[in-house]
């Protein structure tokens, strides 16, 4: 044998030109094979037809201004946007007295001011921000919206409506269901048989009945069990019903995350001397919740859309109030319904899509996998 030779790795070469860049992307993603090409062409045709119809209805043939139905009665009919414009106040505030609507605006604004910096990871003062949003804001919102204190005119919750009700129900449900759901999930995995049975019972009962039933029970049957004279607000009862219902779903989502955490994590936490609550809070839950962000947001989105069911107990959420205004004879046109529904759908979609995008952003940000 001769003496050892020195080994040098080969230098890297650039990738073949047809696999990278715009050309490479189009080639590999759209026209890789004859059947791919066919599918691409069909999909483009379908897209063209859909978008063309939509643009005609919503923009080209649509009516944008007018004081009543006459403006929308044309030969070629598109969306009747003046209907939405005229009713926008109703859609947002419901029957909230017009002179008091600034209070709702103020609550919306102070909520947004608290929420936006919280959602931006780089923004400072997170602790103060959370205290503001979870401590100060709910009290402030309650006082401002219900009134009756500090010289504010009282406004009955039966007069609330539209987007206001949708947001109050959805946000309360979201904020309450996550911690409740976590506790229920931990309870369901507990070693203590009574705690476990109670949690399983709660989850299975609330998950096993439709939300409409829960709302109906909360608003119609609950008062029957309460003593005479004791009565609390219908909206409040709905809020509790929605929170309990969605916490049962949340519990199962969180339990899925807890089960995905390897046993070694529990053992490592225990071996370091961390007790149950500390290891849950510091080790298990941060990992479990991160894993189930898609499921959590799924539940949030479902909850947001389920708020439309409060109509069943006589509360007018956004969709309810839009439908209610279809009966207005001065706006009766063939396109009123579809315009109203399109508007409601768009508003719901904006909120749900925002939640969806934010969850994807958070998933990426929290990822600690090898890049």
């Amino acid at each position, binding site marked *: 044998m001769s003496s050892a030779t020195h080994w040098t790795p080969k230098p890297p070469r650039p990738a073949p030109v047809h696999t990278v860049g715009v050309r490479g992307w189009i080639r590999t993603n759209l026209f890789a094979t004859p059947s791919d090409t066919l599918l691409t062409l069909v999909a483009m045709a379908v897209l063209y037809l859909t978008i063309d119809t939509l643009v005609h209805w919503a923009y080209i043939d649509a009516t944008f201004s007018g004081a009543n139905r006459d403006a929308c009665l044309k030969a070629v009919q598109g969306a009747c946007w003046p209907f939405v414009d005229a009713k926008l106040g109703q859609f947002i505030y419901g029957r909230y007295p017009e002179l008091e609507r600034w209070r709702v605006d103020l609550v919306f604004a102070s909520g947004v001011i608290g929420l936006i910096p919280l959602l931006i990871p780089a923004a400072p003062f997170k602790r103060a921000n959370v205290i503001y949003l979870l401590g100060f804001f709910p009290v402030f919102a309650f006082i401002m919206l219900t009134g009756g204190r500090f010289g504010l005119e009282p406004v009955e919750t039966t007069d609330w409506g539209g987007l206001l009700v949708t947001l109050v129900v959805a946000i309360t449900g979201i904020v309450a269901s996550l911690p409740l759901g976590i506790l229920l999930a931990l309870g369901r995995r507990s070693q203590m048989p009574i705690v476990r049975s109670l949690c399983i019972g709660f989850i299975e009962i609330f998950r096993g009945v439709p939300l409409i039933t829960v709302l109906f029970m909360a608003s119609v049957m609950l008062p029957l069990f309460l003593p005479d004279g004791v009565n609390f607000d219908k909206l409040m009862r709905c809020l509790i019903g929605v929170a309990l219902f969605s916490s049962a779903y949340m519990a199962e989502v969180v339990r899925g995350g807890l089960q995905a955490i390897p046993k070694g994590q529990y053992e490592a936490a*225990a*071996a370091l001397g961390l007790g149950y609550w500390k290891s849950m809070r510091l080790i298990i839950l941060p990992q479990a919740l991160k894993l189930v962000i898609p499921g959590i947001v799924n539940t949030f989105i479902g909850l947001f859309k389920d708020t439309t069911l409060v109509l069943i107990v006589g509360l007018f959420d956004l969709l309810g109030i839009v439908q209610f205004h279809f009966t207005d004879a001065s706006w009766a046109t063939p396109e009123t319904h579809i315009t109203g529904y399109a508007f409601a759908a768009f508003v719901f979609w904006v909120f749900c899509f925002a939640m969806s995008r934010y969850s994807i952003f958070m998933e990426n940000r929290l990822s600690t996998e090898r890049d």
Partner: protein
Amino acid sequence: MSDPIIEIKQMNKWFGNFHVLRDINLTVEQGEKTVICGPSGSGKSTLIRCINRLEQHQEGSIRVEGVVLDDSSKGLEEIRSNVGMVFQQFNLFPHLTVLENCVLAPIWVSKMAKAEAEELARKYLERVRIPDQADKYPGQLSGGQQQRVAIARTLCMNPRVVLFDEPTSALDPEMIKEVLDVMVELAHDGMTMLCVTHEMGFARKVADRVIFMDEGEIVEENNPQDFFSNPQNDRTKLFLSQVLQH
């Protein structure tokens, strides 16, 4: 002589009906390095997992620094914080950086100030030779580096004894040495160690005593020299002939 750190008397354990540990008697003195070896399924991991009560024994007694391990969870967290453990699968917390992994228990269990805990953590990361990885996540490190972080994490609690549960079994051959080197250094610094391992070279180099287990029993124990050159029991001889052949 001071009290033994670990004192196990007539300890028995069952998994359901399976008698996994049988009449175990074992005493570990301060500063002693004990290596436990044996075929898989012999109960060696279960034995050391009983010492910080990740597994519960049913008969006999285990004392750690004089405190009896039993069902009362009072004091268990205290014992666990004094008994370090290094796992086969590292079990680092993947959502925390290396430094955060190390300071977690000092801050939350020992109530140490954050700055002090970080200083301590950096000292131990230095000692396991990965000071420059402090801000990375475990998923970005190699297996050998992860295991060294796990050792540093354990040392940060300033444990009286460290239990090693097959610390090199999940590692690529090229990384075993870097972990063993750290363990040898730790042994030379006087740490009390109880290691379940198949690394016979390590046992020869640092152990004060080697224990051979099979079928849930301690079959033989001796100092490493006699253990390897002059095993008494046939079962030990068979085992050694199989692990030392290559």
